Every structure is written in structure tokens, then in C-alpha cells.
């Protein structure tokens, strides 16, 4: 059977005031095109479909039409809720979604059978899917115990809870059908950003990959936005998000994952890149260097190598209209940290204000002149 695995759409995301709805429409349109050409038997959306717990009507419209279009290619569609989604809201829509041919699982329920979905492809292959939506830590780690448990124990308790849920749900895995798992969590060994940071060093509640059984053909995960394969007892993959959601994910190549699996052979994966997203870029430099930068249609995060002063941001945005985030380069600010504390008593306000501006690294004689004028007016 062929599976299309995608996750972390974050529809409705507003990046520094810039709505990305158009990009989402283009990207999801490309995903649907890929589904039309690849003709998968099953589409897995592993969480974080929406960016907020109360999505806008536009976001809802885009997501529902995308899911319906994916179902329209002839595939079974299963979507689980991530940590950004409102799981209970998705569960409330289950009846409608089932009627439309889309299987939704919004929250972990106490009925185990709810999370075991089975099906049959048109070619007659049986498949079994364990669908585990995002499980909040507050079930495994009770509020009353938060003070008694150390952080390490809390992480272990959460991992133990997830492990026992997965063990209970995968008991029926045997060699006769294709065994699949989809979940929304951080696995130890996953990486963040451009691949340089281990996820468990930043995010708490990481789960070791050994919670997944050795008999699973493919584990489709969501939550980390980078396409990656985590080493474990069975193939554990993050499909990554189909567009860069925020700055810091610029080095990820957005894609969806196509998986070919049969009951008796190992799963083989390949990536289909998504090209219709607007890329995100980070640029650095002084104002002169920035004037030579060509945005190339990307959204920019700009680190300016100048001392902070009034009007700096406007100058940068004039040069680079596609700059969404403008910051002073941290290297400039670090140099200011060593200023000694000066003596304050017995000095004129003008001197004190000048010292304050110096300590903040603000080099703007106009502000000092304005202060003098205002102080002169106020003190008569």
C-alpha cells in the first residue's frame, strides 16, 4: 500500500503580523496535487493542522477543503490533533467528518478501541493504524505531584504513560496486516531547527523511541517541523511541515513523505518536495550591507549590525520591504554588558541621561538634544 504522510500545517499562522493564508492555500494545493499524482491508499496528517485553538473561519475553510480534496483522490484520510489544535473541538466534529470520509481523532479517550482504526485498500491489503493524538502532560503528571517529582521523574512518568498506552494499543499487531502508528510527540533523538539542536535538550517530555513495537511497519509522527528519521526499533519518521512555519526552520526542505509498505516487507520512504511555499531567510549586516541584499521573494528576518537608535527599524524596512522581523545583532549588544556602574549623586540630569543612553548602547545625539530642550522647558 502507499501512504502519504504529512503534518504540522499550522493553518492560520500569522508570522510577525503577516498572514500566511495565501501560502497555505498554495502549499496545500500542491499537497493535493501530489496526492492526485501519487494516488496513495491512506493519507496521514499527524497533528497541528491549525495554528491556534480557535481557528479563523478562513483557516477552517482551508483545512476542511484540503482534507476533503485529499479524500477525493480516493485515499482514506486520518488526521489527529496536535498540541496547537483544539482536540475536543475536532472530536465534536467526528460524526460529520466520518460522513465525509475523513477520520478524526482529537483527544486520547479511555476507550482503547477508539484509537485502533483498521481498513482495507482497494487492492485488498489489510492495514491497522494506532492513532494517538497529542497527549497532554497533565494526565500523566498530576498537579499535586508537580512539586514532589523532579523534572527527570516527570519526564519519565510521561514517557512511561505513553509507553503503556502504545503497548496496550499495539497488542494486536501481528504479521498479517500492515501495522501503522501515528502520534504527535517529541522522540529522543529528534532534532530541531536546522538539525543542530537535539529536541530533548530544548523540549521537555521527550519519549524514547523504544516505546514503539518492533513489529510496526511505519510510525508517522508530527510535532517536529524538520523532516527526519529517528533511529528506533521500527521506522520512525517525522514528515516535517510542508512550509517553514517560523524563522529558525529555514534550512528545512519542506516535503511530504510517500511510504510504500506491504505486510511482509519493510517500508520504503521517499520525499516529494513542496516548492510553492515562500521561503524564510535570515540576513545580517550593517545598513550598507543590507542595501545590497536581494530578498528574492522570501520573508526576511534581519539582524542589523548597528547600535540601536530611533528610526533604525524604519530605515531597514525602507531598504527591505519584505523584512518581517528586525532586530539588533546580539553581537552588538553583548559588547555593552561590561559598563561599570557610575556614581549617580551630585551629577546633572543631562549627564545621567547621557550615561544611561551610553549604557544601553543607544548612540543618538538627537535624543540627547531633545532631552535638554524638554528638561529646560519643564524646569523653567
Amino acid at each position: 500500500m502507499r501512504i502519504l504522510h504529512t503534518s504540522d500545517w499550522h493553518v492560520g499562522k500569522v508570522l510577525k503580523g503577516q498572514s500566511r493564508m495565501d501560502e497555505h492555500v498554495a502549499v496545500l494545493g500542491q499537497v493535493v496535487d501530489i496526492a492526485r499524482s501519487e494516488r496513495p491508499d491512506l493519507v496521514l496528517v499527524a497533528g497541528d493542522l491549525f495554528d491556534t485553538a480557535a481557528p479563523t473561519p478562513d483557516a477552517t475553510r482551508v483545512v476542511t477543503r484540503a482534507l476533503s480534496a485529499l479524500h477525493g483522490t480516493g485515499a482514506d484520510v486520518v488526521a489527529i490533533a496536535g498540541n496547537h489544535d483544539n482536540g475536543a473541538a475536532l472530536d465534536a466534529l467526528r460524526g460529520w467528518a466520518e460522513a465525509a470520509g475523513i477520520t478524526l481523532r482529537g483527544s486520547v479517550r479511555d476507550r482503547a478501541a477508539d484509537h485502533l482504526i483498521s481498513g482495507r485498500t482497494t487492492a485488498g491489503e489489510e492495514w491497522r493504524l494506532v492513532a494517538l493524538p497529542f497527549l497532554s502532560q497533565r494526565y500523566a503528571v498530576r498537579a499535586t505531584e508537580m512539586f514532589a517529582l523532579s523534572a527527570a521523574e516527570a519526564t519519565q512518568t510521561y514517557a512511561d504513560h505513553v509507553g503503556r498506552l502504545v503497548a496496550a494499543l499495539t497488542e494486536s499487531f501481528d504479521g498479517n496486516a500492515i501495522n501503522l502508528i501515528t502520534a504527535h510527540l517529541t522522540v529522543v533523538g529528534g532534532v530541531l531547527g536546522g538539525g543542530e539542536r537535539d529536541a530533548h535538550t530544548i523540549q521537555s517530555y521527550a519519549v524514547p523511541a523504544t516505546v514503539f513495537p518492533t513489529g510496526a511497519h511505519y510510525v508517522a509522527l508530527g510535532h517536529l517541523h524538520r523532516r527526519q528519521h529517528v533511529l528506533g526499533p521500527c521506522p520512525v519518521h517525522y514528515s516535517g511541515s510542508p512550509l517553514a512555519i517560523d524563522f529558525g526552520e529555514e534550512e528545512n526542505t519542506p516535503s511530504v513523505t510517500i511510504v510504500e509498505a506491504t505486510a511482509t516487507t519493510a517500508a520504503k520512504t521517499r520525499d516529494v518536495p513542496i516548492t510553492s511555499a515562500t521561503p524564510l531567510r535570515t540576513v545580517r549586516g550593517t545598513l550598507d550591507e543590507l542595501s545590497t541584499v536581494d530578498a528574492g521573494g522570501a520573508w526576511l528576518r534581519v539582524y542589523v549590525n548597528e547600535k540601536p537608535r530611533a528610526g533604525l527599524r524604519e530605515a531597514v524596512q525602507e531598504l527591505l520591504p519584505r523584512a518581517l522581523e528586525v532586530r539588533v545583532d546580539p553581537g552588538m549588544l553583548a559588547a555593552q554588558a561590561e559598563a561599570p556602574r557610575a556614581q549617580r549623586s551630585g551629577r546633572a540630569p543631562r549627564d545621567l541621561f547621557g550615561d544611561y543612553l551610553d549604557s544601553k548602547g543607544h548612540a543618538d545625539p538627537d535624543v540627547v538634544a531633545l532631552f535638554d530642550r524638554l528638561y529646560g522647558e519643564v524646569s523653567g
Partner: protein
Amino acid sequence: MSPSPLGDPSPVPGPPVGRVLGTADATPLSFWVAVEPGAYLQLDDVVVTRRELPDREPVTISGVVTAVRARHEGALFESDVFAIADGTLPAQVQEAAEITTTRVEPEFYVPPTPGAVVHRAAGEVRSRALYFDRMEQPVPLGAGRDGAPVYLNFEFLNGQRGAHVSISGISGVATKTSFATFLLYSVFRSGVLGAEAVNTKALIFNVKGEDLLFLDHPNTRLTESTVDAYAALGLPAAPFPDVAVYAPPRQGDPTGTPDVSSRLSGVDSFYWTLEEFCADRLLPYVFADADDERQQYTMVVHGVTAHLARHAVPADGGVSIEGTRLGSYADLVDFLVAQVNDEESRPYWVGSAVGLGTVNAFARRLIASKKDLGRLIRGDLPAGRPHSVNTAESAQMTVVDLHNLPDRAQRFVVGVTLKSEFERKEKAGTAKPLLFVVLDELNKYAPREGSSPIKEILLDIAERGRSLGVVLIGAQQTASEVERRIVANSAIRVVGRLDPAEAGRPEYGFLPPAQRARALIAKPGTMFVNQPELPVPLVVEFPFPAWATRPAEAGPAPHATLRSLTQSVDAFAVVGARPAGASLSDDDIPF
């Protein structure tokens, strides 16, 4: 017959099995027995015979079968066997067994008379033959070939007359670790320790896989026959009741979660805070490579260690040295390297007689240790939580998991842990209660060539541990590569399946040739145990462990190890706990 001062001299021996042969020399230490028709003798059977003497009470000679052979008497050529089977050629099948004497009672070493009746020893006669009746504290080891229990004299384990166990055998088949854990189980549960079993502790270093982390979980593959085997030995078939598991923190994890993936509850992480690192002088253990003692930079190491111990002040989780606060091991290393490289501060740290090359060698090695030891020596984890391996305050069995650590870090952990345990024992002043230390891969930690702080500690334990009450149970694949003094000081030597090249080494001289040949084909679970009292090693089959030996066999975790109340509840019930009336469930809606 005058009554013997040793008590009843003639308990009833078992059924007769043959007579002492005269065609081969019968000596006091070994003789041959012709097996009578209708009877049989197998290897490791215990037999007893009696020699009458004119002016003294009879001498009872007991022994163990070490070789058995059968042949056709009257056949010359190999084709004769078909004729004999048809009945056309008369010939006799005769079995003969070689007996190695284990006990002569009273100790009058005369050979048995050819023609004397030989009986199979059973019951009390067997116990006498194998010295079990003289053992005041017998520890059951397993079943012998005949199914009856085989015991070990505890006096040769607890330091009274000997101590230390050395287990050899090839990896995987020789079941060295399983036997070591079974021996500990037997010692703790058979009652030989009496009341002090409460305070007797065991420390196990786990260097391969995660199989030793489940000692307190019941084994799901336990069968009725295994439970009966335990009952025959007088032991309950249950997992270890009190186990604490320690594992190193995950690399890079700021919360210090233990780095184990198969056991998710009841594992603590162990680490040393920077304050302990400085105050307890642990720096020499960072340099625990095999040839370190001969290098010149060891003087730099000791100088820096002493300076750290004097000047490091605890500061908010890390340490503060001369005003600089250091929050992690990497910071400490960078600070030390900067100090010893700086011309002005160097004399205060290492003295004036040290050359630049030596200081650079020290700095290089210290920087190389940053990556390996960064996760073990922390300035950011709480010091109040249990984080140090201290058997005095921990459970009865402490398992220290090392398999995920690089080599240098493993040597650091083993060195520091053993050193602190040994010091605690010295300060406690008495040998009892005992501390058992189980260490696998001894050929890596105490190799014959080279020296290191760990080897010194292990040698110290092997030579002085008896009087301090520290018993080393060491396992290795090749006893010929372990420091000779450690192997030589072991009173109990156990051998599982051996490699043929290894079997010929002199370290296995205690095995008679027949048993040495058998050790090459021993099956898992069969061990040859040599104790000082018996002249011949005994073949022991120990029962399948009642505790889990791998994650797949593990039953539910014991309640005491669960930290959170949610871990003891069914995973789905935890999620389903919704306050009444909070939200509608699908069942509440009738349409």
C-alpha cells in the same frame, strides 16, 4: 567395629552399581569401577566404597565419576560388532567408570580393594561425599547431575576462610551474569546470612545492554517446573525484592533524565555535582587510562586536585574558585586550562618544577575528557535529590548502568564508586555486614598489562577485601588476561562454556582434563564450580532466573519503584478521568 568419633560411620549407602576394577591401578586418589549389568553410571555421579583394614575401623572412600567408557570385550575388529549384534560372535559389553576421590573418611589414604562393592551415594552418604555435612552455612548453587542440590560453603565466600568469586566463560553462552545474579539471590534468600541479610548490600555494574535493569520485575516465562526446581533448593521463586537502578543522565538533557530506553519507571540518574568533584578529589579518576601512572603529568593532576580541594567553594549548584563561578564541567575544564597555561597562576596550581610540555599534556587530556564526562559532572542539577551511588543509603541491590557511556566515563564511574564504597567500609570498621560487588568484563578494568587507579582499587579489594567485608564477584571472558593476583585470590572459581584456545591456559588448572574437555561443550546454565574444600569441581545446573533477564520477559514493575500515582493505574483510566458534568460524551447524546 568400634564407634567412630565422627558419628554414625555407616549410614545406608545407595544401591550397588559395580565393583572396583583390578585391571587398572586403583590409587587412593582415583580408581576404576566396572559397572555391573543392569546398573549404570553417568558423569558426575557420586559413588562410595569401603575398604576394610585389619587393625582400624573401615575407611570409606567417596568419589565422583569423571570418565565412563563402554566396550566390547572379545572383539578385535570393527566389523565384529555386527556379528556380535547378530549373536554369531560371543562378546561381552562392559562399562567402566573412572572415579576421582573426593573424600576419604577417616583420612587414611589407602587404595580401595579391587573387587570391593561400589554403591551409588544418595542422601546423607552423598552429602558426606561432597563435604556438604561439614558446611555450617551451605548456599544452594543449583542441581547436580543427579538432580539433588549442590551447595557452596559460605565460609569461602564471606571472608571467614576465603572470599571472591571469579567466573569465566565465553560471551553469550556461558551465562556468567545470570549465574552471578543467581548466586546473589541464593545468598540473600537462603538464610545463610541470618539477621544481617537486612544490611548486606550488593552493587552490580551493568556494562552490556539493558538486561540487568529488570531484576525486580517477575519473569513472565517462569514455568511450574522451574518453581519446583527453586523449591528443591529451598529458595522462593520470586524477583529480587529491593533493587535501586541508577543510570547516567542523557547527553545534553538539562533535566537530567536517565539515559535508559527500556525501563521507564524507577530509574534514578546518578551524577556528581561540581562541589563533590572538587571536595572529594575525583580529578585523578578522569585520567584512568591504562598507562597513566607512568606519565609525568600525574604530578600536575595531583597538584591541581589538591588546589581544587582547598579553594573550591560551593556556589548555587556549581563551584566558585577565587571569585569565578563555574556552572558546568566544561566551564571548569576551560578555567583549569586557562589557569595552568597562565604564567602567573601556574606555580600556585602545580608548583614550580613542572615543564610546559607536561602542562600541555595535562591540558590536552583534560580537554579531551570534556565531552565524555560533561553529562556526569554537573553544576545545574539539584544536589538534594538522590544522585550518588551510595549502597549504605540505597536498596539491597544497586544496579549502576554504564552501557551507554563511553569508555573513559565508564572507568571514571567504576573507579569513583568503588573507591567511595571501599572508604566507607574502612570507616565502618567491621567486616560485617558484607558488600558484594559484581563487575563484568574484568579483563578491561584490571588487565594484566598496564596499571590504572581502577586496577589498584580492584587489587586492593582482592587482597584486602576479605578482612573489610567486600566480596568481589568478577566475570571475564578470558581469565588469562585479568591481573593474576585478582584471579589467584578468588576462593571460588566458576567456569562456563570456554573457548578452546583459552581452555588450555594454566589459569584453568583446577579443572581435571575430562572436565576441561566438557567445558568446551557446556550448555548455557551449566557451570563448573571449584571450591577449596572439594578436590574436584562440581557440575552445577542452576535454574532459570525467576526475575526478568530482558525487557521482553519483564512482568509488571513492583509498586515501590513507581514514583507517580498515575504509573500504577491503567493508562487509559488515567486519561478518562473527567469530572462529572464537565463535558458531554458521545454516549450522553441519544441522537
